[in-house]
């Protein structure tokens, strides 16, 4: 039997090729399995990751699916599950594979949770990551932290002893002491992303009301969250015009100790140690959860896994083959190739027992320190708008166009208008 399986991966650069190649490896495996059973199966895997950006990828996938022309497998954010499943573009993976069997039963439960919607498993997590807080050790030492204190930071952050208030304080000190330039005390991400939801959580914000399954706007948390960035700008530890800074420049700066503290993704590790030439990562940088903002909140981090999703096809057999392929691609060994090559975190418990993974200090430590505490953004059809409105509000407060209170009022107005019943304001 000959068939072609098409795989499209969004947002993938050269180190992410295993998102596609893993399917090819799985195809080889599956062919062998079939052969053993005496069935002939020839799978051609058509791979594509040429997309301008996430938006282009999503346009392409949705329109192709509407045209009945969807790729069999897509690698995309778990956030797409909600709208795409409602539109019928994707089918539950649990309808085709045994979730209780290897390797799926080895995947972290919370990750499976993240790729489920309405209690149905729609996709298989393809990788995990997290968005930690970073400290430049040298600066911290100059601020008076001992090596031991620095080593203890992750724990203090986790326990809520070291909060964002301390962040501001230390950052301001660093600027005042001219250890870093103005605006480089705290040096956040330069564009919208899940990272900012972390700060909302730090101040006690929740994105989803567990009980009703509706989105949740916690005005107090939102105001505090905005206020934190406004304070940072006022204290001159963060630049007013920070948003929109070029990524390239940003990477170079944080990897060279120009900033005292910042936050970023786990995959930045590859960039710091690769292109930016930071040889001794662990000697220079400490990483922790995002500290709590105040007593309402907690130290946290968000993981934003990409997932393998199966699209609806006219021919169910093709879907089944595709399902088998993503199942095989989730083998810890295969997934580890991707995790290490692209500096992502693994998806399965057994990966810690695979040398390639275990011997990678970053993967091992980050998994342990971050992944356990990580939550994800909610799978909800309105979350895209929620997140966009939240960030727009942050931007207006940050740049001083509005006060935090005004910004939140605007956010509330817009959320109520666009999300209607689907959002609860608290």
């Amino acid at each position: 039997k000959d068939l072609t399986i098409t795989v499209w991966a969004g947002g993938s650069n050269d180190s992410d090729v295993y998102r596609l190649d893993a399917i090819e490896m799985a195809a080889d495996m599956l062919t062998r399995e079939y052969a053993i059973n005496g069935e002939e199966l020839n799978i051609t895997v058509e791979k594509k990751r040429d997309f301008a950006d996430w938006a282009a990828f999503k346009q392409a996938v949705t329109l192709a699916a509407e045209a009945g022309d969807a790729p069999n497998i897509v690698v995309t954010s778990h956030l797409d599950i909600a709208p795409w499943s409602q539109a019928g573009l994707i089918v539950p993976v649990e309808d085709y594979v045994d979730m209780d069997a290897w390797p799926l039963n080895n995947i972290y439960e919370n990750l499976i949770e993240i790729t489920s919607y309405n209690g149905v498993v729609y996709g298989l997590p393809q990788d995990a990551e997290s968005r930690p807080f970073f400290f430049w050790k040298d600066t911290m030492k100059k601020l008076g932290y001992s090596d031991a204190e620095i080593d203890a930071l992750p724990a203090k952050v986790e326990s809520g002893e070291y909060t964002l208030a301390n962040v501001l304080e230390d950052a301001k000190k660093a600027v005042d002491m001219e250890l870093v330039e103005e605006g480089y005390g705290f040096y956040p991400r330069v564009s919208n992303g899940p990272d900012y939801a972390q700060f909302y959580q730090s101040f006690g914000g929740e994105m989803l009301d567990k009980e009703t399954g509706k989105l949740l706007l916690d005005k107090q948390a939102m105001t505090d969250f905005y206020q934190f960035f406004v304070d940072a700008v006022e204290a001159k530890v963060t630049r007013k015009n920070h948003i929109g800074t070029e990524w390239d420049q940003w990477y170079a700066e944080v990897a060279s100790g120009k900033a005292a503290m910042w936050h970023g993704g786990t995959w930045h590790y590859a960039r710091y140690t690769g292109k930016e030439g930071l040889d001794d990562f662990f000697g220079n940088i400490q990483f922790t959860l995002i500290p709590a903002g105040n007593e309402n909140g907690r130290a946290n981090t968000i993981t934003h896994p990409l997932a393998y999703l199966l699209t609806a096809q006219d021919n169910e057999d093709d879907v089944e083959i595709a399902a088998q392929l993503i199942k095989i691609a989730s083998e810890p060994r295969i997934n580890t190739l991707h995790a290490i090559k692209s500096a992502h975190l693994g998806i399965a418990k057994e990966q810690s027992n695979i040398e390639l993974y275990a011997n990678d200090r970053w993967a091992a430590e980050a998994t342990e320190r971050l992944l356990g505490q990580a939550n994800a953004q909610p799978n909800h059809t309105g979350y895209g708008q929620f997140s966009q409105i939240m960030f727009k509000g942050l931007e207006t407060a940050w740049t001083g166009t509005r006060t935090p209170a005004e910004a939140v009022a605007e956010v509330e107005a817009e959320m109520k208008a666009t999300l209607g019943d689907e959002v609860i304001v608290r």
Partner: protein
Amino acid sequence: MTSSNFRSWPLFLVLGVISMPLVIMYVYLFVDTVTDTTAGSLIPDRFTLHHWRFLWEEPETGRVSIWTVTLNTFIFAICTTLINVSASVTAGYALSRLNMPFKRFFLGGILTLHAFPTITLIISIFLILQMIGLYNTLIGVILVKTALELPFGIWIMKGFFDNVPWEIEMAGLQDGASRFTVWWKLVLPQVQPGVAALAVFVFLSAWSEFILPQVLAPSGSAQVLSTYLSNLIFDDIKPDFNMFKSVGVFYALPVIVVYLIFNKQLMNIYGGGTKG
């Protein structure tokens, strides 16, 4: 300008000064494609062809070869130009010279169509393409691009036809030629500068079209250079801006050549529909 009453050096000076930033940008754009520069410095360190490796290296997983997309781009731009110019030339003639009902309506409508934000039509265009089975094909994108640019083309061509002396056409009829022969053999050659100008315009515009192929023909076989270029997502692990610029320069070269060859024709665009 043949008059000897004005000196040109003051203008040369002023133009030189305001063109400076652009020239510097061009120069650096090009220099960056063949050199490496240490961060923070403005002076390149060494010469290298490394950034042009996409020309000879095998494409990476999930990527298409630059040569395939270059060929696609040529097909796309040339077909768009051909179809657009042919349709503009016939429609422009009809609106300029022929008797027909609802002429005012057509003319006004065509000008007004120009006001539509084409990008937001994409979803609807997608539906139509899917209906007629041209979604995800190069020909579909070509037709869409043509449709969106046609109002401009028709308008310009009508202007050019307006300027052809009626007597030529009358003479043709008198010589026994049919209206069609008159148009094809006598009138069309007169608007050749207009056709050339329009063709250059359409070609340039098609060459740089990006959103339509991206959205309406996402599969690899219909990729064009614009999408290839934007799809070199800035790799955030080991980005190569200089290669990005090299692809950009590679992409721009053909149109620069077209411009340099045809800039005289382009300077004829006035006289088309742009004349009062």
